């Protein structure tokens, strides 16, 4: 009876997993299929070919877009971690005039939907003369209220005596943050890093608004322009370009998977 139930359970789980994995695997295999085979449901191409990738690479600067995306998402992630943790540390552990206001303002930012600030933000970028620059892609995302609040929540749980001992040992506040708090906050830092990186990596709307030069485009933006604009020409090429977007994230996830799940779980329990 027990075995039977287990078999049923695993069969159910396998079917569920397949419904998630199959489209992705099909997409991956379709990129290696010649044009005539793309429409078929088979997982393995009869004649594997890299033609779709070659066509894609030749028609649009995907290499450059990949580097742009890495640069933009990387800079934003580092900035959110560094500046965010500095802000979170001061909000959580320092006493200063205006701290309640800062707390309320940070919370308030969360309540405003992004779509609402899109047009004012765009106007601002135009007035700064930042259209078609990296600054337009990066600067608006250097700070993140959600990240600040998550880190603040975590920092609040670190015992005061650690800060006190560090001060007695002769550390300044920055040093306390980076040599004591950072090593102890790995769970929250990694979850903030992963979310920020993925969010920035997948962002399409904002780059579409502020960047028109092809050499400045990020990968998802170029992909959108390329596929929707008819540049791809065939579904195989479209899918190949989507693979270029997905693969780095999948690889990153595979590497960080344990950390990711741990931090999700631990931040849930502790937060």
């Amino acid at each position, binding site marked *: 009876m027990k075995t039977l139930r287990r078999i049923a359970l695993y069969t159910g789980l396998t079917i569920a997993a397949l419904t998630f994995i199959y489209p992705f695997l099909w997409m991956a295999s379709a990129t290696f299929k010649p044009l005539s085979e793309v429409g078929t449901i088979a997982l393995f191409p009869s004649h594997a070919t890299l033609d779709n990738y070659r066509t894609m690479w030749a028609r649009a600067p995907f290499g450059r877009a990949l580097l742009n995306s890495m640069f933009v998402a990387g800079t934003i992630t580092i900035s959110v971690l560094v500046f965010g943790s500095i802000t979170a540390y001061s909000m959580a552990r320092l006493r200063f005039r205006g701290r309640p206001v800062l707390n309320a303002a940070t919370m308030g930012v969360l309540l405003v939907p992004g779509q609402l600030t899109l047009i004012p933000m765009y106007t601002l970028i135009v007035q700064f003369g930042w259209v078609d620059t990296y600054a337009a892609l990066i600067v608006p995302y250097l700070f993140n209220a959600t990240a600040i609040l998550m880190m603040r929540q975590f920092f609040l749980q670190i015992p005061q*005596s650690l800060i006190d001992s560090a*001060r*007695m040992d002769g550390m300044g506040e920055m040093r306390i943050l980076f040599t004591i708090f950072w090593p102890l906050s790995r769970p929250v830092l990694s979850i903030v890093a992963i979310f920020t990186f993925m969010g920035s990596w997948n962002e399409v709307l904002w780059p579409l608004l502020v960047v028109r030069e092809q050499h400045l485009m990020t990968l998802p933006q170029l992909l959108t322009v390329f596929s929707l604009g008819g540049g791809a020409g065939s579904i195989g090429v479209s899918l190949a370009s989507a693979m270029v977007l997905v693969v780095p994230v999948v690889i990153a996830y595979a590497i960080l998977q344990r950390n990711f799940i741990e931090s999700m779980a631990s931040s849930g329990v502790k937060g």
Partner: protein
Amino acid sequence: MPSVHFDHVSKRFGATTVVEDFSLDVEDGELLVLVGGSGSGKTTILRMLAGLEEVTEGTIRIDDRDVTALPPRDRDVAMVFQDYGLYPHMTVRENLSLGLRLRKVARTEIDRRVAWAADMLRLEPLLDRKPKQLSGGQQQRVAMGRAMVREPLVFLFDEPLSNLDAGLRAQMRIEIGGLQRRLMTTTVYVTHDQVEAMTLGDRIVVLADGRIQQIGKPIELYRSPVNRFVAGFVGTPPMNFVDGNVAQKNGSISFTSDGIDFPFLSERRASDVPSGSVTLGIRPEDMTVDVLDAQSDGPTRGLQGRVVLVERLGGTSHIHFDAGPHRLLAAVSNDRLPEVGDAISVRLHSERIHLFVGDRRISSVI
């Protein structure tokens, strides 16, 4: 020259005054204990001395140098925290040496001091472990080692033993006392535990509501408390208090209260005692208990009571008894103890009686 000097120091958080007009000299090499209940301001005083809390008013001098506005790192003090404050991601060795590395002490000197402290505190086998892998007592010793390697002018201890179990606490108390006597470093020690204060302190400062109640050697606080608070705070089990009146009767002076009529003064000292309402204080160990025979009426004057509870602790036992409406406690070392319900006669050792008018103790009542 005093090693630490507080001059009219006050601390306010908003409208709340936590420490009020605190002045104190700590002598060189002395172990001074600040003791008081929660909210007495003792930890705030220590944190102000450490530089972890700003001083609202007044000045603090260490070794004749005004440190009031200096950050902790420039004060040459080291502190041991209640929860030890060890860096969990660093080994014991790193925990011990970090403060010295930040002060740019030479590598060889750091190694020498860490080895010295590790040897003194028996930490050598633990040097490469992380704090999590240590027991409470071991963590406590690492925290002390971290203070020692700094070779500071003043050690500060903030309730260092309150996270340990009773047995270990007694042992660490002895270790801290021994260590301080060997190093002869000026030490300010904060605790809420009066037993710790009595056993460790060269001098004790009793605090309540941010104010000094009394400063003195342990035995002075025990024998001559200046007020009811100190009398009740110092000593275990605590002093018994009975509110009543002093009145002249038949040429001698008696203390009377409901169910108690106790002559305790000879006529010639009668002028020293104000008449009217007073509080009598007597420590449990300053009473002698006699069981009364069922038939006899017992003494007509003095304290008579009925036993409500006997706690047998082995060496001494605690006898809780009712005298009139008053529930009192006597600590006796007899082997022959009364039973619950027995009528007893209690003699107070008259030279150990304390009289309080209002809150203040009247000195030399006897």
